[in-house]
């Protein structure tokens, strides 16, 4: 990976996830400054040292909780102290099983906070800074599950759908200031979230997803599916007529 030509800072939300770790390593190899944000500071410290060894300019673990808005401000303040381009990649999310939510409907509010309202609030607070600098890229990781509500995980899917719509609007807003938003819709990725889930197929390595994201950032793509073939799988799924779809369990 080539070194970036200018100062580049990446705020990575949810940096303890394996997808985020793989992405952080890619950004480190470009010589970026990394703010690694999440709840488990011990784990973030390990990733921070690792990214430093892999070429990052500086790395810093930052306390972040998608359900605690008061944790957002200090991270944004910290980022604005850096010169050059500020970018933000959002990997936060949680996926309680649909069964768990059926048993305890209260879980919906946390799921929506983790996957949608938390990150959206953070990005809303960050947006003016990107606008005033006239640069920067936001990477929002959604899910193919957000493309259509399915019996298996429609609460998680609807939160991701909300986030995707938010990202679309944010892109519309930031484009006119010279910043950019990439919406990422991964299919099945080999992470802790999917480790023991039955029926996984065509599972991608987190490194593959991270490479796709970095390429999408470089090429200023708007919406990517990763691996790419999910675009076609979801194209078919989105076009199944509702009167048929409602009887299916895919």
């Amino acid at each position, binding site marked *: 990976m080539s070194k970036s030509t200018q100062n580049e800072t990446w705020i990575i939300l949810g940096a303890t996830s394996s997808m985020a770790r793989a992405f952080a390593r890619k950004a480190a190899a470009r010589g970026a400054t990394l703010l690694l944000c999440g709840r488990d500071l*011990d*784990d973030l410290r390990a990733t921070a*040292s690792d990214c*430093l060894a892999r070429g990052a300019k500086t790395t810093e673990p930052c306390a972040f909780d998608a359900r605690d808005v008061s944790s957002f401000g200090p991270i944004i303040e910290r980022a604005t102290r850096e010169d050059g381009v500020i970018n933000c990649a959002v990997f936060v999310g949680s996926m309680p099983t649909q069964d768990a939510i059926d048993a305890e409907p209260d879980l919906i509010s946390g799921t929506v906070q983790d996957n949608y309202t938390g990150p959206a609030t953070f990005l809303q607070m960050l947006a003016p800074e990107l606008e005033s600098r006239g640069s920067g890229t936001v990477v929002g990781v959604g899910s193919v599950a957000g493309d259509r509500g399915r019996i298996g995980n429609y609460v998680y899917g609807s939160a991701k759908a909300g986030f995707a719509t938010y990202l679309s609007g944010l892109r519309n807003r930031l484009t006119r200031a010279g910043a950019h938003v990439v919406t990422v819709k991964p299919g099945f990725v080999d992470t*802790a979230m999917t480790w*023991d889930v039955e029926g996984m197929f065509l599972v991608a390595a987190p490194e593959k997803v991270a490479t796709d994201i970095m390429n999408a950032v470089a090429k200023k793509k708007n919406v990517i599916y990763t691996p790419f073939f999910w675009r076609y799988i979801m194209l078919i799924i989105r076009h199944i007529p509702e009167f048929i779809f409602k009887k299916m369990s895919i």
Partner: protein
Amino acid sequence: MSWKTLESTGWGRAHSASGDVARPERASQLKRLLAQAPVPAFGMRRSYGDAALTSDAPSLDMTRLDRVLSFDDTSGLVHVEAGLPIGDLGRMFAAKGWIPPVMPGTGFATIGGCIANDVHGKNHHVVGSFGQHVTEITLIQGDKTLVITPSDKGIFQATVGGMGQTGVIASAKMKMAPCKGDLMVLTERRIDNLDEFFVAFDDSTADYTVGWIDATAKGANLGRGVLEESEITSGVNPGSGKSKSVPFNAPHWALSAPIVRLFNEMYFRRVPATGRTSVKPITDPFFPLDAIHNWNRLYGKNGFNQFQCVVPLNATNCLRIMLERIAASGLASPLAVLKKMGAGRAGYMSFPMEGYTLAVDFPNRGSAEYLVRDLTDLAREAGGRIYFAKDGLAQAKQIAGMYPEQETWQQEVAKADPERAMETNLVRRLQLRGAPAAPKASKDQSETALSDTGLSNTGKGERA
């Protein structure tokens, strides 16, 4: 933390096991899992036989714990999580002027695996084994976490080369070696027979030496091959990052005797009679096979076994007999390696000893199994030993006496893991920790060993 049942194989794909596997992504998860029940851990499963397999028992996949935890660029001391592949470590630091002092034949081996097998490299005669450069190991034994150093003699020597039996290696510190750059000057020359090889090893002054042997050659050509000598040189390799892959299992005739003979003839003649010198990226001579992912599929769906032994310097006749039998069998593959080793070793059960090490791959078919056992007996009778990282076929009685410090190791391991929770298929097959205690009236010995340890009924209930 969740578990799933996985079917896994050793790198040779001739041995397999099925059991529940968890894959922690954080050090805290690893501790929590082991506090529930101590279970064996594995990395990239590059051991050829069953050293990294556990049947019908839970185990931990360490590959997501693969981070550099600290690095001191004045001393070269690096602290890494056990699941980091050693090739990644090499690539990360070569351009900064540091290199792991010992690298095995594959860069995919994890640091935990390098310690547990006390691996050696092509420079063993100069720098010794991997474990000799390890300064600290963080070891998890159930709910206890120990930090051990070489001055903790017993437990440290039982852990290095100890095949995971003293606990799970969570992380380790090691001294990197300064290096001039990430290019290597490689000199290759033909060697016409075995005696010439012995002379060539004695005369070689290179840091890295290894001999490729044409294991199909007979008579006057017995033991012919190519000597590869290399040194690290300055310069930085940009690296193409491209690798090839074997997409499917090769048919059984791909490595049949006539094809291997032809290939070996060409491989031998590829080096000009006058020898040649070239400059290569550092990974090429270190990890020649890593450029082709899944090269183990070349052996077809039945897989292969590798035999690797080391015999004392004076046992040259034993090597001659081995090569004669291998050539006569018509079973050899193109992968056969001879190397002179130094005495360096760091653990009670470490493989290296001063002498010659011979490694040969055999497709898993016909009488290969018997040939490997035959070769194992020859190695023992010559005062040598076999390498557990490669073995999948030896019988318990065949390895008796090969490792003179085995009893000391057993005592340390018994203290570290009295319930025998860390036993792997290899350890059970070779009864490395002694015969299973109080065998029950069961016809299947491995099942007995399992229930004796209580492993067969731990986990599930405590795991939720």
